């Protein structure tokens, strides 16, 4: 651990200065670094969108040292201080292979390490159908998408599209029906379409995929093909799906850094929201909210539409919906999981709820351990953070306005239960808010307050290692993007301006941008 010198951070001036001073500073910095940047020479890309990423005043209001650190950089000649440690003090700097996402946060003490390992065991555990001797492990299903958390969060990372004739597993189709005025489950098939079931029970069916081509044309004439998936249900085993039910495809995201994301103060997340686009920058991030049992609502931040307010909530919903495991919360207490009354076979099956082991098939002790594990998976360090190509790519990222939604830096709250998560400078590249991403990416299915065209800004930290951890993975909410460049080119809606910047880039610039993303 480096000892801190009491030196002021040398970087962007604090936001106390007027906008004019910031613009002057940028110009001066550019002159000093002697670099001809795309913003001054490329007349077609228009306004430098980086000017719009000023730090909102409500973020760590009054603390000028912190605000100075959090202000978006304007100096791309070198890496920023702390930039390599993108997961804060707990950043792991030892594994950049297939285990890159599977390390415990480096900050964990030896005693907590055992808790982490117990949680790891539970995360890896293959749950079995009831009845079984191993009562702590039974209760799977009857319908499920995977039998272990690892089944979808492969190597603690992203899921993957089916490989060579397999059926879909870590790509799930959630079912959203607006029949009652609110978005809810399908009346027969429930909240998710399950392609697996316990022995003797028919799975709900299979998922078919077809693709159509979309094209993006760069200003240099290069044409880039994208593949838009369409999903349909096959071999429906329990009758028709409701005519108003939408299919919402969801690929499992990686699970590192979640405790840190949860530790960003809600007010600081909300500070970035601008639902009416008051500042006229074309970006209108909105929060999603989770309604909790006791009548409260909490800021959503997890899941592809930010519907879940905490890692624990995300976990118990996943245990229930993806694996058919009940837990102690009332809403998720049905041991038959996501099985509706229309699926009569469920009522006749044994289940894994044993009172002496605690309430639910996954009792609190089990949920606590899984939650500790998923709170404490380390973020891998940045690679090649000072490489000139990557710094050039970083500048392109900022100049294209990407940082408006993929907000690079946050500092977590001091008010967090676990020491290791408190007061950490983290670089997740997300504002955790919902954004309209345009018609091409829309699933037309709402969730909580999220509409059918909105998605939460995905965190980008660690994304450069996704294919090292699992070569079969792919990007965006349903894995439709095989490469990071594909993912960028899918952006639309609020991101249209940024996309236009990218389409204006030369081949060399595109390559630099991708190098930057791969270094995250």
């Amino acid at each position, binding site marked *: 651990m*480096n000892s801190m010198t009491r030196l002021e951070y040398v970087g962007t001036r604090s936001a106390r200065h007027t906008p004019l001073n910031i613009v002057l500073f940028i110009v001066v910095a550019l002159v000093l670094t002697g670099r001809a940047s795309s913003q001054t020479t490329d007349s077609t890309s228009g306004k430098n969108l980086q000017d719009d990423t000023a730090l909102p005043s409500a973020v760590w209001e009054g603390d000028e040292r912190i605000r100075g650190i959090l202000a978006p950089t304007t100096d791309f000649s070198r890496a*920023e201080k702390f930039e390599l440690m993108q997961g804060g003090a707990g950043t792991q700097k*030892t594994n950049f292979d297939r285990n890159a996402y599977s390390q415990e946060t480096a900050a964990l003490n030896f005693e907590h390490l055992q808790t982490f390992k117990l949680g790891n065991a*539970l995360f890896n555990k*293959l749950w079995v159908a009831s*009845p079984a001797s191993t009562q702590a492990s039974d209760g799977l299903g009857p319908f499920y998408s995977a039998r272990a958390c690892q*089944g979808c969060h492969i190597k603690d990372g992203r899921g993957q599209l089916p490989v060579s004739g397999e059926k879909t597993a870590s790509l799930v189709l959630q079912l959203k029906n607006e029949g009652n005025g609110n978005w809810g489950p399908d009346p027969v098939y429930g909240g998710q379409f399950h392609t697996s*079931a316990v022995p003797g029970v028919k799975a709900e069916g299979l998922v078919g995929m077809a693709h159509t081509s979309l094209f993006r044309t760069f200003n240099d004439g290069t044409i880039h093909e994208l593949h838009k998936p369409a999903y349909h249900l096959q071999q429906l085993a329990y009758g028709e799906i409701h005519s108003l039910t939408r299919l919402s495809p969801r690929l499992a995201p990686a699970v590192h850094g979640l405790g840190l994301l949860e530790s960003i103060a809600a007010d600081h997340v909300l500070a970035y929201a601008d639902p009416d686009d008051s500042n006229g920058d074309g970006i209108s991030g909105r929060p999603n909210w989770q309604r909790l049992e006791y009548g409260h609502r909490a800021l959503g931040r997890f899941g592809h539409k930010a519907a879940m307010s905490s890692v624990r909530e995300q976990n118990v919903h996943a245990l229930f919906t993806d694996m058919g495991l009940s837990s102690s919360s009332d809403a998720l207490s049905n041991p038959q999981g996501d099985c509706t009354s229309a699926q009569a076979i469920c009522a006749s099956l044994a289940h894994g709820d044993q009172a002496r*082991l605690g309430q639910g098939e996954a009792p609190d002790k089990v949920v606590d351990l899984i939650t500790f594990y998923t709170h404490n998976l380390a973020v891998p360090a940045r690679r090649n953070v000072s490489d000139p190509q990557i710094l050039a790519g970083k500048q392109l990222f900022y100049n294209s306005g990407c940082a408006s939604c993929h907000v690079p830096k946050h500092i977590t709250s001091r008010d967090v239960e676990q020491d290791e998560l408190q007061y950490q400078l983290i670089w997740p590249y997300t504002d955790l808010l919902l954004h309209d991403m345009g018609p091409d990416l829309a699933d037309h299915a709402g969730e909580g307050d999220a509409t059918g065209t909105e998605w939460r800004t995905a965190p980008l930290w660690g994304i450069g290692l996704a294919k090292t951890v699992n070569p079969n993975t792919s990007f965006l909410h349903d894995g439709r993007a095989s490469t990071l460049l594909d993912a960028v080119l899918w952006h639309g809606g609020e991101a249209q301006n940024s996309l236009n910047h990218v389409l204006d880039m030369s081949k060399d610039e595109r390559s630099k941008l991708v190098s930057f993303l791969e270094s995250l």
Partner: protein
Amino acid sequence: MMNSRLGLTTLATTGLLLASSTIYSATVTPSEVMGTYADIAQAGYQDALQTARNLKVSVQTLIAEPSEQSLEDARTAWKSARIPYQQTEVYRFGNAIVDDWEGKVNAWPLDEGLIDYVDSSYGADSEINHLYTANIIANPSVTINGQAIDANVITPDLLSSQLHEAGGIESNVATGYHAIEFLLWGQDLNGSDAGAGSRPFTDYDVNNCSNGHCDRRAQYLSAVTDLLIDDLEYMASAWASGGEARTALTSAGANAGLAAMLTGMGSLSYGELAGERMQLGLMLHDPEEEHDCFADNTSASHYYDGVGIQNVYNGIYKRVDGSIVSGPSLKELLAATDESLATELGEDLQTSVDALKVLLESQLNGQAYDQLIAEGNTDGNDMVQSAIDTLVYQTRNIERAVVALGVAGIEFEGSDSLDDPSSVFQ
């Protein structure tokens, strides 16, 4: 730094031309140590294979002439087969080839209801109290994961390819040691009380068949035992000279090889044994949250896991036939760098083996693992917790050994600049 000291040691060795491997020289090389590690793996898997073949013979006898005695003999052969296999578990952590293969032979918990009849008293009451009938032994055709499986003839191929889902996303847990265990003992319906599974030998007697489908049960038992032998044959040859596991290790280089050894020791001690297999069950108070849950053989399995860790460190393995495999050891290598740590770690390993032996002796004297972890059995719980504590304790010194030998991951160099990107915000 550490690496250059090791380099000096290597130079000294070649200079002195030490040859004999029976002298415990202070100057061993990493590649010699890795050679011993691979030799012990090879011997271990060969022993596991041989004892599995012995198991097969006793299984064939059980099927041909079912009786109390032939069932008892098969059970004894199964327990004997666990002894060398458990000592190889340390190789699972640190060798991807072993880790990827392990699920086929040692997966747990089992899909009991998928394999054979289960008692309806397991699982909470359902509205219709019925025996779980969707099992392969009872059904020539069964739906698994939404697909119809033709199980008319139960063969090793049916079990390994048709039940096994591709991509490692869903695996059948219907093969390997514990599947054989389940078929020999049946479910342990005694909970926290004394007694293991008590499957009658007549479950295999086609002339006086209990619980139906004796012919198919015999087919399953035979097929799953053959499959275990096939799987062990693969791993034994993978550690032979030129085999993929040995080659992967040697081609990875000294640093990676030592890392694999120490990772194996540490992961098995801490995460797997102390954590998942012991602490979790104790914490959850589920008597069957134990690996050899049908045979009540868990204490023995844990003991031989501990011995296996010690084998790797000391570079010594006692084979099933009594002969010894040994060679330049990790202990000697570590002693050249930090003698007191090397001694201390050696003592820690012996302490944990001794603590695990207490559990083994308890099993041999009639108090099995599930009784020890039962709610209310304070003495038993304490015995298990003590063993856990010794395994946790040794992990600290294993970690110190990692640092002492210089095999920790590549550290990032901090720069001298004021704006060091690798500094930590406080």
